[in-house]
């Protein structure tokens, strides 16, 4: 099983959304990581993947697995988040009608990611957003 990997995430590819999180989940199952940890990783990675799909022009996801943690970094090419504090507030969403039609846009994603992560770093500019999270295995 791989200890690192990188995926491309296409903007507004709503039907295939979830393939990155599914892939990382399967990798962790192969490494016998405890179930409750895999659940936290799945929640965080899924929400982050969806955010790149529905809010950005597209980007990448890279992951790095150590003995005691997984680090996952999402980078996209814009348009960025204007006010990060506001974006993290539960219920705040700028999701478009198509995303909402697919069940997204509850405005809970960033808070779900923050709650699931041990380290949560979100930086953004009009050139793109970088979300860098780490989840410990113990």
């Amino acid at each position, binding site marked *: 099983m791989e200890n690192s990997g990188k995926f491309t995430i296409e903007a507004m590819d709503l039907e295939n959304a979830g393939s990155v999180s599914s892939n990382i989940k399967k990798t962790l199952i192969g490494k016998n990581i405890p179930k409750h940890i895999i659940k936290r990783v799945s929640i965080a990675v899924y929400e982050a993947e969806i955010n790149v799909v529905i809010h950005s022009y597209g980007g990448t996801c890279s992951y790095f697995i150590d003995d005691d943690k997984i680090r996952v970094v999402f980078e996209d090419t814009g348009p960025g988040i204007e006010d990060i504090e506001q974006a993290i507030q539960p219920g705040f969403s700028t999701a478009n009608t198509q995303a909402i039609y*697919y069940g997204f846009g509850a*405005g809970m994603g960033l808070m779900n990611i923050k709650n699931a992560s041990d380290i949560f770093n979100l930086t953004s500019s009009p050139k793109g957003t970088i979300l860098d999270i780490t989840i410990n295995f113990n």
Partner: protein
Amino acid sequence: MYMQVLDILDKIKGEVLTKKVTNATFDGVYAGDLLSHVMAHAKENNLFLTIMANMNAIAVASLLDMPVIVFAEDTKPSSEMISKADDEKIVIISTKYNVVDVIRKIYEL
């Protein structure tokens, strides 16, 4: 408390659209359509009850290890969704009842 999928099928007049069902079980029901709420609150082995018939329902059920999805109010999953669910060993059921009636009938309230 675990329940057998076969035991609720008649009660909810459910049609099984995937292959596997014979001994599928579930433990409790999570009902919802907003996927971030499902991700945050549904539990492993829950039956996932929704009207959100698109691919993301399968993705979420798979990520959270939910073994059964019931699509209420005659919402119909696509054939792609059904084959994806078969791959993930998730049972898909369609019913004409709405979410409240499905819960009533499962628990005989």
